[in-house]
């Protein structure tokens, strides 16, 4: 698919400064899992992407990073054109081939479908970037591990039960694992593979709280 010029939007106004600031924010959320950071270096994002997802893409993706997009994003002209124009990243068909997988919360790939790296090179795994309807510090998950002094609580809305269970279970394969970024509007958080996740409650999330603004 060629780049559609009418869909192109401006990237960072000050690319060097802004991509470093966003990279710094990404480092912060990865090294202190569960903290939420706001990033505000662009005014708009392509239709279908949240501001934080778009800024993360602008600072992390380049011609050397292979990217997989979940079906809705992959069929969006605006998303593809802007990623191609601003990041020049190759898009791949299967999540296994990707360095970064960008997905909507309703179209998550199975973790097993991603690249987990190898015992020699666990760092060659796919990093998963998920766009979710809400992120908050409500006690829903209790996080612990490197970068967290005692525990930290985090609630990520809109995740299927099966995926949550899979994510919690994936910690057993350490040092292999999948690092995840979670994006909502202009906010960003991360759960690297080192973070232990304990569900505070086994009850199914009530549906009415999912609509909260993020």
């Amino acid at each position: 698919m060629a780049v559609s010029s009418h869909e192109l939007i401006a990237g960072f106004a000050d690319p060097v400064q802004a991509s470093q600031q966003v990279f710094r924010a990404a480092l912060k959320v990865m090294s202190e899992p569960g903290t939420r950071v706001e990033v505000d270096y662009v005014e708009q994002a392509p239709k279908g992407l949240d501001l934080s997802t778009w800024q993360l893409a602008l600072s992390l993706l380049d011609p050397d990073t292979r990217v997989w997009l979940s079906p809705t994003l992959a069929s969006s002209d605006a998303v593809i054109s802007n990623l191609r124009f601003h990041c020049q990243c190759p898009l791949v068909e299967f999540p296994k081939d990707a360095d970064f997988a960008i997905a909507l919360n309703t179209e998550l790939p199975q973790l097993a479908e991603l690249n987990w790296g190898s015992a020699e090179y666990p760092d060659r795994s796919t990093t998963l970037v998920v766009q979710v309807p809400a992120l908050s510090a409500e006690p829903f998950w209790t996080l612990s591990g490197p970068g967290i002094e005692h525990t930290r609580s985090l609630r990520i809305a809109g995740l299927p039960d099966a995926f949550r269970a899979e994510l919690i279970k994936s910690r057993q394969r350490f040092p292999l694992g999948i690092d995840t970024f979670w994006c909502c509007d202009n906010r960003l958080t991360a759960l690297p593979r080192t973070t232990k996740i304990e569900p505070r409650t086994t009850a199914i999330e009530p549906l009415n709280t999912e609509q909260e603004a993020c």
Partner: protein
Amino acid sequence: MSVEQQQETPETCARQHWMGVLAKSSVAALQQRWQALSLEPEYQFIRKPETGLAMLRGRVGGSGQPFNMGEMTLTRCAVRLASGTLGVSYVSGRNSQHAVTAALADALLQERSTQSLLQRELIEPLQDELEAERQQRAAQANSTRVDFFTLVRGED
């Protein structure tokens, strides 16, 4: 990244031509003619001018195996006019003003209202200058041409 299949429509060819002229013209000549037109379109940057390297590839005799000849410095830029038209430029060297002007001219050349004016006042004179320069260089080179031939030697 693979090169997208582009259809060779007349519009594409015309655009390739004017983008080529804008990129190859000297900065001074382009700026002078551009300012004389005193067009001041409203625009926003989609990609601010940025300088980088591009690998030039060649083929021996135009048909051999492609090889990497060397890298050149180039500056690229993309702007969007208030009307929504996108202008793109890739120019050699590090002059960002050259890239901005070329991108603006590319955008305005796609607009019906300004196309003929710019063709007449900007592209054609610049093209003539480029052609004259090329002719002059060719003439200079031609004056030093040596034709090699072997005289037929007598047998005795």
